[in-house]
């Protein structure tokens, strides 16, 4: 099953970062790179935020935009089925299950990040993908919750990008 890349992977796929080789491998064989829409939102927000030196961030932003518009890149939409599923998931799990072990961010920031993770999982599931992530604990919980909610549907697979 093809995997969509969550933000923990997509944010580390540019040159010199630890998932650059993965991106290169996809380019080499012409395999599509699938990125959920909420991850695109995070990438662009991060590189255009006022807190970032925009002159220094601009080359990276340009690089990511070129990738997003590349014919091999698929942005997995946050569409009607994904949105409905995300709503159900967030109602079941309004807080990240591993929040006590999360390192960064206030509780409010963790809540916002969790809402994005829920959307990413829903996009991947409704889009027909598995998920490649470094955050297997949280997405594993989402996978299990989806399986309880939709026991007849082919389950979401969560693969550890650190392996």
């Amino acid at each position, binding site marked *: 099953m093809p995997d969509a890349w969550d933000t923990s992977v997509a944010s580390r796929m540019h040159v010199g970062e630890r998932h650059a080789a993965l991106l290169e491998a996809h380019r080499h064989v012409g395999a599509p790179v699938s990125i959920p829409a909420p991850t695109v939102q995070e990438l662009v927000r991060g590189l255009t935020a006022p807190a970032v030196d925009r002159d220094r961030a601009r080359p990276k932003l340009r690089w990511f935009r070129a990738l997003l518009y590349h014919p091999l890149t698929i942005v997995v939409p946050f569409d009607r*089925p994904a949105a409905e599923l995300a709503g159900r998931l967030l109602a079941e799990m309004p807080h990240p299950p591993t929040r006590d072990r999360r390192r960064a961010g206030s509780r*409010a920031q963790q809540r916002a990040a969790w809402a994005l993770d829920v959307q990413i999982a829903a996009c991947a*599931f409704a889009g*027909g993908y598995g998920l490649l992530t470094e955050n297997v604990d949280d997405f594993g919980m989402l996978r299990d919750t989806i399986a309880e909610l939709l026991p007849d549907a*082919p389950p979401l697979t969560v693969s550890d990008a650190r392996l």
Partner: protein
Amino acid sequence: MIASLLVAPRPRRSARRPRAPRRAGARTTLRVPDDLAETVARYAEQHRTSTNDALIRLAYDGAQRYGYERTVEELAAERRAAIERLVDGEIPPGVEPLSPEETTRAILGFRLGLYDEETYGA
């Protein structure tokens, strides 16, 4: 003139286009549209191979992409159908629906950090 041509050195092998790999499979004849033929020729030049081999490689790329998309579409269709089948429990007779205010409050609950904080002890 003819003699000089006969003794002229043959082109070095390294300067020639490499031979395309031999493949098994049925032979076929097909008409290649002009615009595609240009792309195939460019690909063959860039990868130093024959136009036949270039056409096959490009077809493999397309087939791989088609296979990828088909896998994803089939899985998505099955999962989306499952999402659409989601049903909520029966509505008990005589139940009083949420008031407009309660409905709005329920919908904005996550955004405003209302009762899920109480319910889940955040």
